């Protein structure tokens, strides 16, 4: 009886997390707690960092294999939820919600701002070249490069296709840098602009008609999808969501897409991406390199956006010039990078509100990063 009792306890202990715990799990749990703390105390992207942080904790609770509880174990609940990430189901649904939330008026009224969104995609390809130089395969390099697009769903979508083994590190890196946009971008913006340039006042945007708003998603999907069909899942859903919003006859659908649906998918994607960072698969030298390359691509993307505006201004008449402080908004971290432009602009002129102007390149960045993702897929997949 005594032996049975001791054996039973021993068996129970062997099944517990304490017996299976490794240093890696503890480190990752601390990382998860830091994410949650940053989200609550600093309010850095709480909608993303809280699910991801909690997911990291869940994914790193040690357990015995075969219990069908881990995210990588076939048949477990987390594995079923992770299917949406692995097969690229969630990112297009998030794009549907983004489309239903985004107002493209700023872009329609001042179309030249769209080119800033294109320039900021240089970060993706600079990181791609840097990753190749560091010894990653072209497919892995493509997946790492997309971090520079500053678009979490796109990064997950591309890495699920090109480098599923690196998806956890790529997604965490992309979302972390998106949360750190207010920290990373301002020094680069200040470094690359003169005090005079920061004071440039832009012409107020014109009013945009309902017809223009309805035609925009239809024509955009036709133009971009014909050019890059591989970007169809992301671009299609983005513009479909926008059509739901702008058509003004599908308010209920637009409302669901921009509220309930995107919230549900954000919860699932954040939690399962966090879970996928099990210490055994995440704590590797590659993950550190991915974080370094992610930061590099963010810096290049921001710098390219700002420098492109300065170059563009050389060809624009006085009165039509663009404030280079909105150049950073070309990365598609909506609306954080546009907010950074506005905050920086107000530091030098308290009446110069750049938010509406910065939203133009910001949403152009969403389109640009989806197009860039499509190109990478067509070359590498």
């Amino acid at each position, binding site marked *: 009886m005594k032996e049975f009792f001791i054996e039973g306890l021993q068996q129970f202990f062997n099944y517990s997390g304490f017996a299976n715990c490794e240093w890696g799990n503890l480190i990752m749990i601390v990382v998860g707690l830091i994410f949650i703390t940053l989200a609550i105390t600093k309010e850095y992207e709480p909608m993303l960092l809280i699910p991801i942080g909690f997911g990291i904790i869940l994914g790193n609770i040690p357990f015995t294999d075969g219990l069908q509880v881990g995210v990588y174990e076939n048949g477990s609940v987390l594995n079923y939820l992770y299917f949406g990430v692995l097969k690229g189901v969630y990112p297009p649904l998030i794009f549907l919600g983004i489309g239903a939330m985004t107002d493209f008026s700023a872009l329609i009224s001042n179309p030249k701002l769209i080119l800033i969104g294109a320039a900021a995609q240089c970060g993706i390809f600079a990181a791609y070249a840097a990753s190749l130089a560091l010894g990653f395969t*072209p497919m892995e390099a493509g997946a790492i490069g997309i971090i520079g697009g500053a678009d979490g769903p796109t990064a997950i979508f591309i890495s699920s296709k090109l480098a599923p083994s690196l998806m956890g590190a790529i997604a965490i890196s992309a979302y972390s840098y998106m949360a750190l946009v207010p920290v990373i971008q301002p020094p680069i913006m200040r470094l690359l602009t003169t005090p005079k340039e920061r004071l440039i006042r832009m012409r107020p945007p014109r009013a945009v008609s309902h017809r223009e708003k309805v035609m925009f998603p239809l024509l955009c999907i036709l133009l971009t999808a014909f050019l890059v069909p591989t970007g169809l899942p992301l671009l299609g859903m983005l513009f479909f969501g926008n059509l739901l919003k702008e058509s003004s006859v599908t308010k209920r659908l637009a409302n669901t897409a921009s509220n309930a649906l995107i919230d549900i998918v954000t919860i699932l994607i954040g939690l399962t991406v966090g879970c996928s960072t099990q210490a055994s698969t995440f704590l590797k030298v590659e993950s550190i390199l991915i974080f370094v390359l992610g930061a590099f691509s963010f810096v290049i993307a921001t710098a390219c956006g700002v420098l492109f505006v300065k170059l563009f201004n050389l060809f624009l008449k006085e009165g039509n010039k663009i404030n280079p402080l909105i150049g950073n908004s070309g990365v598609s971290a909506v609306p954080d990078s546009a907010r950074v432009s506005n905050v920086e602009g107000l530091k030098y002129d308290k009446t110069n509100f750049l938010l509406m102007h910065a939203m133009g390149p910001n949403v152009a960045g969403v389109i640009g990063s989806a197009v860039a993702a499509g190109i990478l897929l067509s070359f590498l997949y």
Partner: protein
Amino acid sequence: MNIKYRILALCIVLLGSVSLFGQQVTDLRLNEMLVVNDSNYVDEYGRHVPWIEIFNTSYNQVNIAGCYLTDDTTGLSVGDASRWYRIPTTDPTTWIPQRSSKVFFLDNSPLYGTYHTNIDPNTSANHYVALINSNGKTLIDIFVYPEALLTSAQSYGCYDDGINTKVENGKKVKNMGMLPYATPGSVNKVQVGATKSEHLQKSDPHGIGLAVISISVVFAALIMIFLMLKIFGYTATRKDRKAKKEQAADVPAATANVPANEVGPTGEELAAITLALHLFFNSQHDEESEIITIDMPSKHYSPWSQKNLVMKKVVRRR
């Protein structure tokens, strides 16, 4: 009467299950065959013997047990299976997963195991192998091979797994032939040479080419949208411009000479006036809320935090 209905229902269920099984088995195809096996697939006895591959074209797993393999279909119409090789029904490994295959040895040694048949293509009078359903009457697939296969070191089979015919120029043609690689138990269409990614790594080791092309395509896509929006803007504001022109033409000569800033209030002035009016009308109030409190209402209201709702009420005696 009731029993009759029950028997009828049972018969329908049995019939349905049989037809369902048949329907699944019909998804099987004889996919690839090799006769001169000098250095290819080895059986569990270490022998190089001829083999044939059966491919499951469906997206469900199929049990091949009970089906027949033969090189002589005589007796098919009457269901005479006495000379055919029957795949054992007692072996659990006879399930073929979706889009997968099983290899059977054509070594005329049916006693060697489930996957060893009584067929030997080297001594067979017919140049075909047939797969017949467990009822002994339904031909699932027939694999006709050329005589050249008996002397060739190459295998013969479908170019695309499970697809033995295709339509070309409106005509149905054979999709079979000598295959460059013998692939027992795996897909026939093997990828030879470098993948897209490997090819790219060779031709563009530093990624500069891809970066330049990609940036150009991104710019091209967004320039197209830019041009489209420009045209949009032009057509959308055409009416406004027309109206402005007409308005300008109607303005008397005397007022036309007045400087623009004296014609009327500017947008900013109008905004300031509107704001002032808004503040004026909204700041006037005669009635106070009459609520005096020093406690802020709870931010996180929830019925769970309401004492009167969660506490057990004391029963009062009357």
